[in-house]
């Protein structure tokens, strides 16, 4: 289902009905929340879903956490406001890893999200609900958030397009902050065209978010690119990583496909990327430990009434937050403490700078960088990993967040019946170039697979 196919029809009730009938097991939608868009808008009648860490006035925003279980949003996020004005209607909020921390969507206070392509497997996270809902065909598109791959990874697992724009493209006003310097709203849908259309509507400078940048090129006007005219680089780390053999094969297939189209593909060594997961897991929890401090039971949200202020703080957060959130708050608090600040946080900022500069330089030379979106296929529900193994699932997606680059997951065939996705990373604030390449690749690959079937 795409926006293009739906335009001019009112499928709001139909979509809601689908969710009610089909979502009991998948668990991708936490609540139906109906906010009807502008009746005169071009897209009136088309529904969308929003990750439950994005605020919409008068509706709950739980962040899939007990601590905000009954929290009612007092205002609407800029991006959602723009979509409503364009005529789109919100029909619900989607499940996620608690406070967007996780990559299998099993860290939700409201239960895990199942993969619509294989119910025994995870949807991926943290925007698992938004990816699964599009994958299940409830809506033509949904909003997620991407801090280290949280849109691209579940998009890859659920077989949909997932785009994280350049940092600053879309206002974060109304998006519950996880790691402010890395967070960005992302779009999940079935085509690059739809993604471009949605970003074109919600992008732009916002007086409520000083980190937004202005972007004037129309993202929808030219989505074709001659694939024989592009230079692609693959970071060597892709081949050094312990990849699932089927993933390696599928990735090579994609490379061959592009080469056959005439693209120039080169493997280059970027040793700096080895540090990106480490840097990410210092910066993101540090910012999170500060961003999540406001959930203290004083002004809103869950409060464990207790004798004494410190006990109230302690028990409210002890009971209100899940294990992964607490783990990251503890890591972040440690990283920022006076004794370790220069050893970890300030060093991580420096390495982030180095990685970013390196990527900017490389992308001056190459049009896009290409990797598998995930080093592994979707795990089974409840499959046991240690946290570090989970964290490594973000190896290929994290660099784009560190450098603020646009990046997109494009479905490319199936592995053992499961979706597989290719990630393209583009130049900073040149999202239109990345989208054109991704669209051309996606459309021609689709044709190719249809031919083979």
């Amino acid at each position, binding site marked *: 289902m795409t926006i293009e196919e739906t335009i001019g029809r009112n499928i709001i009730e139909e979509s809601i009905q689908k969710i009610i009938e089909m979502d009991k097991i998948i668990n991708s939608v936490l609540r139906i929340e109906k906010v009807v868009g502008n009746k005169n808008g071009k897209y009136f009648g088309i529904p969308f879903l929003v990750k439950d860490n994005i605020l919409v006035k008068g509706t709950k925003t739980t962040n899939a956490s007990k601590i905000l279980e009954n929290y009612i949003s007092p205002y609407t996020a800029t991006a959602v406001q723009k979509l409503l004005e364009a005529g789109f209607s919100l029909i619900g909020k989607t499940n996620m890893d608690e406070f967007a921390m996780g990559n299998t969507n099993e860290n939700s206070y409201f239960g895990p999200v199942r993969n619509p392509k294989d119910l025994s497997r995870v949807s991926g996270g943290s925007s698992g609900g938004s990816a699964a809902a599009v994958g299940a065909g409830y809506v033509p598109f949904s909003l997620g958030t991407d801090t280290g791959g949280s849109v691209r990874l579940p998009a890859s697992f659920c077989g949909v397009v997932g785009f994280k724009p350049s940092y600053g493209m879309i206002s*974060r006003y109304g998006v519950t902050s996880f790691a402010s310097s890395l967070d960005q709203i992302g779009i999940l849908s079935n085509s690059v065209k739809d993604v471009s259309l949605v970003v074109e509507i919600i992008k732009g400078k916002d007086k*409520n*978010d000083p980190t937004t940048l202005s972007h004037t090129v129309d993202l929808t006007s030219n989505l074709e690119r001659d694939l024989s005219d592009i230079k692609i680089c693959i970071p060597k780390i892709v081949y050094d990583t312990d990849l699932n053999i089927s993933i390696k094969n599928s990735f090579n297939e994609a490379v061959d496909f592009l080469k056959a189209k005439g693209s120039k593909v080169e493997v280059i060594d970027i040793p700096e990327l080895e540090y990106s997961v480490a840097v990410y897991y210092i910066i993101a929890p540090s910012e999170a430990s500060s961003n999540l401090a406001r959930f203290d039971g004083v002004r809103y949200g869950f409060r464990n009434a207790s004798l004494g202020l410190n006990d109230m703080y302690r028990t409210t957060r002890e009971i209100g937050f899940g294990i992964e959130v607490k783990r990251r708050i503890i890591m972040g608090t440690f990283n920022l403490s006076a004794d370790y600040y220069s050893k970890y946080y300030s060093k991580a900022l420096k390495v982030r700078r180095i990685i970013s500069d390196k990527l900017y330089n490389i992308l001056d030379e190459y049009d896009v960088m290409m990797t598998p979106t995930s080093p592994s296929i979707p795990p089974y529900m409840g499959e046991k990993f240690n946290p570090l193994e989970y964290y490594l699932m973000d190896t290929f997606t994290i660099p784009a967040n560190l450098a603020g680059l646009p990046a997109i997951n494009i479905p490319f065939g199936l592995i053992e019946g499961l979706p597989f996705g290719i990630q393209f990373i583009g130049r900073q604030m040149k999202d239109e170039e990345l989208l054109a390449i991704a669209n051309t690749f996606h459309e021609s690959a689709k044709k190719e697979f249809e031919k083979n079937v």
Partner: protein
Amino acid sequence: MYKTIIGLEIHTQLLTKTKAFCSCSTDHFNSIPNQNICPICTGHPGTLPALNEEAVKLAVKAGLIFNGTINKFSRFDRKNYFYPDLAKNYQITQHFFPIVSNGYITIEGKKIRIKRMHLEEDTAKMFHEGDQISTAQESFLDFNRSGIPLLEIVTEPDIESPSEARMFMEKLRNLLRYAEISTGDMEKGALRCDANISIVNLENNQTSKRVEIKNINSFKFVEKALEFEQERLIKNLEANIKMIQETRGWDSTRKETFPMRTKEDDVDYRYFPEPDLPPLILTDEFIDHIRSTITEMPEEKAKRFMIQYDLPQYDAEILTSDKELADFFEKCVKHAKDAKFVSNLIMTDLLRELKENDDEIENLKIKPEFFGELKELMDSNKISSKILKDIFPEIYKTGKSPKDIVKEKGLEQIDDESELRKIIEEIIKENPEEVEKYKNGKKKLLGFFVGEVMKKTKGKANPQKTNEILLELLEKE
């Protein structure tokens, strides 16, 4: 011989219309609790700070009038700690790169150096049923103050006595008010002061531990608290009592400091760069523009008063010591058209009343046009200078016009000759013995008759005319 070393940390609320990072009103005195709040200043999820340019302008202005270096690159940081009055449980401040470095203020010819000045946000106000958070059954929060822009000013430890600290604060407030950067009102919390003090015994170089005194809320208490602490530290040094680096509070009713916390309980604020705000980059044009908006400062104004109003230096300095006072003076002169007359009246009578009643110039009932009326009443001999002095407190307290008071009380001078003559004739009739003595050469008795006239007219008789008529009548017979 002991040497006292004092450094001050001053927080001043900037006079912006809206808060530092949201568009809520800063008027927290005329509002009911939690009237001027929004999701941003109450720390709701998803909110982001948007910097108020007015606050930046005022900080730059303060940097310029305190002779500081304006940093073209500054940045915001987060100071993390948990407290209910802190909406986000972190305060946005400038820890690593402040907007102003260096600077100084001159006190009686001595430079007190300023180390840095930086922007930050104020906290909410907390009220406890009972008095303390630890024992209160209920506590209440008012977020009207949350997010009001503050400028923190940190001095070098250049201050050498409690009275010098007080003078510094007074001068600082005066300059802040002059440049319309802050109301500088300490009682209302628009200007707050924490003081660091330590003592060195110059004979043996023994040094006391450094003590920080918090919550000092008046100019008087800056001096009193530091005097108390100075004495306490010297006593401790002399008695060789082991001291700890600590933070103490000032109890203004018991007039003493009390322990609040020691270095060991110091919170780790986990400062780090605020990722929600880009660095603050200032251009030369911006700074020059702010420089051009700075109006006349006290020293210039005093010089102008001496020339324009022909006032002695002493008068000019007192009148310009406070911007409101200087403005009031100039308005009065417009009405009275006699600068020395106004200056005398302000310096003696008005300042006395202000001090006795503990009033602020902004709240005066007495109006500038009253000085015009008073001048007119004097010039036309309608009242004597004695009557003027007598009625001034009433004008001050009631705000009634001098003309009305003079009329109501019948205080107008008796100028009418026939009326005066009648009164004087009566007095002559009533005092035949004194008239006899006068005629026999005891001319000094003229004073007695003048006194009688004044007694009878309650001081309203025109003295010159009284003299003339008395002489005429006494000499005649």
